[in-house]
């Protein structure tokens, strides 16, 4: 196997998702307003420092869905550092607003 092929295999192994956990609001609330946005978050120093995602695309609405993913690369980092550094990927979709209905016509008109 060439070095190039080995590097490709290693990259695929490290970057491919191998476990996903998705939490989605049931019913209409689970129909999201936005496409998924994701960040890789790090927990460092056995949890002493924990990154939080920067959710700035939801226009004051709630979250409809959150997916947490890990992969072989993240697992290796966690094992090799004995838990000192634990990366995770977090993905979210924003919930929709719930506007009150409006009046398109002239009020009271036939």
């Amino acid at each position, binding site marked *: 196997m060439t070095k190039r092929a080995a590097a490709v295999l290693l990259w695929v192994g490290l970057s491919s998702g191998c476990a996903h956990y998705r939490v989605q609001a049931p019913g209409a609330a*689970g*129909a999201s307003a936005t496409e998924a946005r994701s960040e890789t978050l790090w927990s460092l120093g056995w949890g002493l420092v924990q990154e939080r995602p920067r959710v700035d695309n939801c226009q004051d609405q709630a979250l409809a869905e959150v997916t947490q993913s890990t992969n072989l690369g993240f697992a290796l980092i966690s094992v090799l550092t004995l838990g000192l550094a634990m990366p995770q990927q977090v993905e979210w979709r924003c919930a929709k607003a719930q506007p009150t209905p409006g009046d398109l016509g*002239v009020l009271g008109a036939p």
Partner: protein
Amino acid sequence: MPPVIHESSQKRWQNWHQSYTQKLELLVDVWNADASQSTVPGYVDTTQGLQGLIQRALTERLELRGLGGGWSFTKAPATSGILVNTRPLNYLFPAPRTHPAYPGRREDLLFAQCGVSVAELNHFLKKTGKSLTTSGASNGQTIAGAIGTGTHGSNLETGAMQDFVVGLHLVVSPDRHVWLERASAPVIHDEIPQRLGAELIRDDALFNAVLVGLGGFGLVHGVLMKVVDLYYLQAYRRRMPLDEGLWRAFDQLDFSGITLPGPPGLKPYHFTAVINPNDLDRGVFVTVMYKHARCPEGSSPPSPGSKLTQGDNGLEIIGVLTDMVSELTIPLLSRLMDRFYTEYENICGTHGELFTDTTTRGKAWGSAVAVPLGRVRETVELALATNRAYPFPGLFGLRYVLPSKATLAFTRHAPMTCVLDIDGAASTRTKGYNRRVWQQLARSSIPHTFHWGKFHELDGPAVRGLYGEASVNAWLEARKALLPTPELREAFANDYLRGLGLA
């Protein structure tokens, strides 16, 4: 106030069912400035915001596409240019003032902004004592996306979703947006398009073309639909032997040779079948629903926590199962079906309570072919014979709808269209199986058309051959009328339309 246009840094977009990833220049989320209250000024401001995006696309020589739920398996919503996520646009305006010649009640009309999902519509309508006449088995699609690709249910008394639409507000250029409805059936009072600043066009040919517009006519900003009084469906699912009587029911909707589950003497409002082609000896699943003004005594409400619900069809089943297991084999599919897709009796709920799925993703892969009543058995037998030679781990679904007036509706076969869904786990085997069925169909004399939102391999000549020269020409002429310059037509084109010979 102008709408909030949030530009995402992501340069790739994936559809809901994860069947492809598309590179793109820009993804924007468009939010109404005041997302908490549906107002006409807010709606008008958002129209201007959408026009600004069209101007940007023209200036930067990019394609532009409105994105709904992204529910389609095909690349109908995909673009390499600007993808405009319309899902946050969910204003609702019930009971608009009607045209003096409109014979119906204004209470039976609802104007929805393009991003309102079918689930949201069901939720809102129930509160007002109303209901959609029909929807797909799943309901995460937006209203504009659902009608634009011809989403359908299996209601024996109505057509597909676009067939309850009676008016459309379409943004076609940086300086023009139009209100479209049929000249033969005017609905809205002239004053309302004026309030929206829209040009009023009453034209049957234009309206029918834009209904199933595949995103190629501009940005559909609002949809006026006809709704009905809230009704309840009493539902039954039973495994039945595939005998001559059931074949006659599938082929002709002639129920005289079988005993349908449920109260005797009632005409079904909804009728579907799910067939596991590798487990025929144990029969096929038949779901029947009867319409009532209220739930009959003794019926049970739907159980909202189930993995599969009463209205789920082949695609939802496969989606749920492939969410649980990564590889779906023929024996495993049968075992999982036994575990999760079970018979039930006398469940009653509203349309929105029985067709609930908004969450299924999974690694499903599906096609849907529409054929006329009378050719259903031939089509299913062709698919079964193909499966005997080349078995695949998947399911067939049979659903029925009245033919549509939309120019390029795939549910077009009179007197009634039957849609054969073929859904399986996304695999080379499933794709190979589907291709074999499509090839067999092409060699047969069975008139057929393909769902625009599910997989197919149509090209320009095939579209003209299957949907008709006249229909394709009428659709293209309407597109030219509404998008008069080559620049506009290019802006609202994409690879999908070009591949179909529709751009």
